[in-house]
C-alpha cells in the first residue's frame, strides 16, 4: 500500500493571488458611492425656486430648463405657494449653468403661441413645455419671480411714445416701417390717463434710431387705404400683407432733419400720410452695430423659439 502511494503524482500547491485584491472590491464600491455623492452634492448646481402664476404644462421630474436650446436643468418639484396665488417650481440647475442663478435673470415658460404676425414655441407642441431663461448679471440668488411671457428681446432700442386719436388695428408687435423696411415694433397700446387719446409705446431698433428726428412724421399704415378720386379712379394701397391684419405704423423724416431724439420722445400719430411725406429722403447715416448684436435684431423674436 505504501509503495503504491509513492507512485501517485503529487498535486501542486500554489499561492492564491486573489485574496490580496479581495478587499479592493468593497473599497472600489465605496469609492464609487463617494463619487456619486460628490457629484450630486458637491459639484451639483444650485436648486432654484421660481414662482409662476401658473405652472400649466410643466411636470415634476420631467420638464426641462433650456437655455439657447441646451438643457441646463430639470424641474424637481411643483408646489402650490402657501397663499395659493402662485406655484413654486423647484429647478435643479446643472453645475455648468450655476451662473444663470443671478439676480435679474428672467425665467418664463415657453408654450405654443399663435398670434397674428408671429408663431412661436411650435416645438413645445411635440416636445412639451419647458422653462427658459434670459440671464441676468446681478448677485447670486436662488429665488426668482417667473415672467408670464417672454421678456421683450434684449435689444438696445429707442423707446418712443405715439399719441393717436384712435387705435385702429394696432396691437403689441405691430411693425413700424421706414420706407417699407421694418425698423421697430409696437410694445403696447393703452388709453391715456385722461382717456382722451390712445398712447402707443413703440421701440425703434438701435441701428435705425438716427432715422427718428424731432420733426419726423408718423402715420398709421395699417389696413387698406382706399382712395376714390374723380380723375385718378379708385386706388387701393396697403403697406404690407402683414399690416392688413395686424396694423402698422410708418414714419418719414423731412430733408431738413432736426436733432435726433432720445428715449421717451412723444410724437403725434397721424391717421394717414400726406403725399409729400412719402417723397422725403434725407441722408441719414445709420448706426452700425457690432457683429454679435446684429443677430438680435432679427425678427420675429428668436429667443422664444
Amino acid at each position, binding site marked *: 500500500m505504501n509503495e503504491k502511494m509513492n507512485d501517485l503524482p503529487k498535486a*501542486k500547491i500554489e499561492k492564491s493571488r486573489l485574496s490580496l485584491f479581495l478587499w479592493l472590491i468593497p473599497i472600489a*464600491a465605496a469609492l464609487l458611492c463617494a463619487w456619486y455623492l460628490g457629484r450630486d452634492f458637491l459639484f451639483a448646481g444650485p436648486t432654484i425656486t421660481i414662482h409662476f402664476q401658473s405652472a400649466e404644462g410643466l411636470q415634476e421630474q420631467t420638464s426641462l430648463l433650456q437655455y439657447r436650446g441646451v438643457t441646463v436643468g430639470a424641474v424637481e418639484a411643483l408646489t402650490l405657494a402657501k397663499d395659493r396665488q402662485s406655484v413654486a417650481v423647484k429647478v435643479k440647475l446643472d453645475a455648468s449653468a450655476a451662473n444663470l442663478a443671478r439676480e435679474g435673470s428672467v425665467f418664463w415658460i415657453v408654450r405654443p403661441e399663435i398670434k397674428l404676425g408671429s408663431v412661436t414655441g411650435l416645438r413645445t407642441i*411635440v416636445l412639451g413645455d419647458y422653462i427658459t431663461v434670459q440671464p441676468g448679471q446681478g448677485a447670486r440668488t436662488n429665488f426668482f419671480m417667473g415672467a408670464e411671457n417672454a421678456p421683450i428681446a434684449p435689444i438696445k432700442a429707442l423707446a418712443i411714445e405715439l399719441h393717436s386719436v384712435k387705435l385702429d388695428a394696432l396691437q403689441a408687435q405691430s411693425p413700424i416701417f421706414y420706407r417699407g423696411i421694418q425698423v421697430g415694433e409696437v410694445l403696447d397700446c393703452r388709453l391715456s390717463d385722461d382717456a382722451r387719446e390712445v398712447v402707443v409705446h413703440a421701440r425703434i431698433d438701435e441701428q435705425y434710431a438716427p432715422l427718428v428726428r424731432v420733426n419726423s412724421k408718423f402715420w398709421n399704415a395699417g389696413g387698406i387705404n382706399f382712395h376714390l378720386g374723380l380723375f385718378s379712379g379708385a386706388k387701393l394701397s396697403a403697406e404690407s400683407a402683414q399690416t392688413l391684419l395686424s396694423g402698422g405704423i410708418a414714419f418719414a423724416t423731412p430733408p431738413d432733419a432736426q436733432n435726433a431724439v432720445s428715449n421717451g420722445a412723444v410724437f403725434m400719430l397721424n391717421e394717414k400720410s400726406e403725399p409729400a411725406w412719402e417723397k422725403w429722403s434725407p441722408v441719414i447715416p445709420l448706426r452700425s452695430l457690432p457683429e454679435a448684436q446684429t443677430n438680435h435684431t432679427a425678427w420675429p423674436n428668436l429667443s422664444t423659439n
Partner: protein
Amino acid sequence: MDKLVACQTCGLVQEVDEVPKDSVIKCARCHFQILHRRLNSRARTLAFSLAALILYFPSNLYPIVTADYQGQHIQTTVFQGIRALFQHQQYFIGSLVFCTSILTPALKIIGLIFISLTLNRTYWKKTRTWIFKVIRIIDPWNMLEVFLLAICVSMVELGEVAAVHPGRGVFSFAATVVLTLLATLSFDSRLLWDSPAEKRHYE
C-alpha cells in the same frame, strides 16, 4: 493531512500534502484547481456582500431607466416602478417585483454579512443557522437579474418609439447583481457547523 484526491476535471487520483492558508491545489496533470473547500470562503463572502451592500443604496436611489418620450424626460427608479404598478392596480406583480428586487436582495446581503462577521462567536450559532435557513428560502425569489433583463429588453424594443437610456443607477444595479451572485458562490455552508479547529483552517 496526507490524503488522496481525485481531480474533478480529469479524474486523476493524486496525493495532496497539507495545504497552507491562502493556497490552491492544482491537478498534477490538467492544472485545473482542485477544490476541497471553497477558498477563503469567509473573507470572500464578506468582501463581496459588503461591496453589494454599499452599491445597493445607489442602485435603488438613482434612476435605472431614463426614457425620452415626446419631450418628456422620464427617470424611473426601481421603487417608482413598483409604485406605478400599484397605482395601476397590479398589486400581485407589484409585490412580486418589490420582493424580488428590493426586499430579498437586502435580506440576503445583510444575512451573509451577519454570518461571515459572527462566524467565530459560538453563542450565535443558532442564529446563524436560522439566518442561513431564511437565505435558502428567499434565494429562489431573489431575482434582480430578471429586472436587469427587463431593462435591456425595453431598451432594445422601445428604441423606435422612445429613446430609452440606462439611468445613472444602472451600473451600481448591475454591480449589485454580480456581487450578490459572487457572494453566494463563495459562501461555503459547511462553515456553519465546522468545529473551531476546522474553522480556523478553512475560513
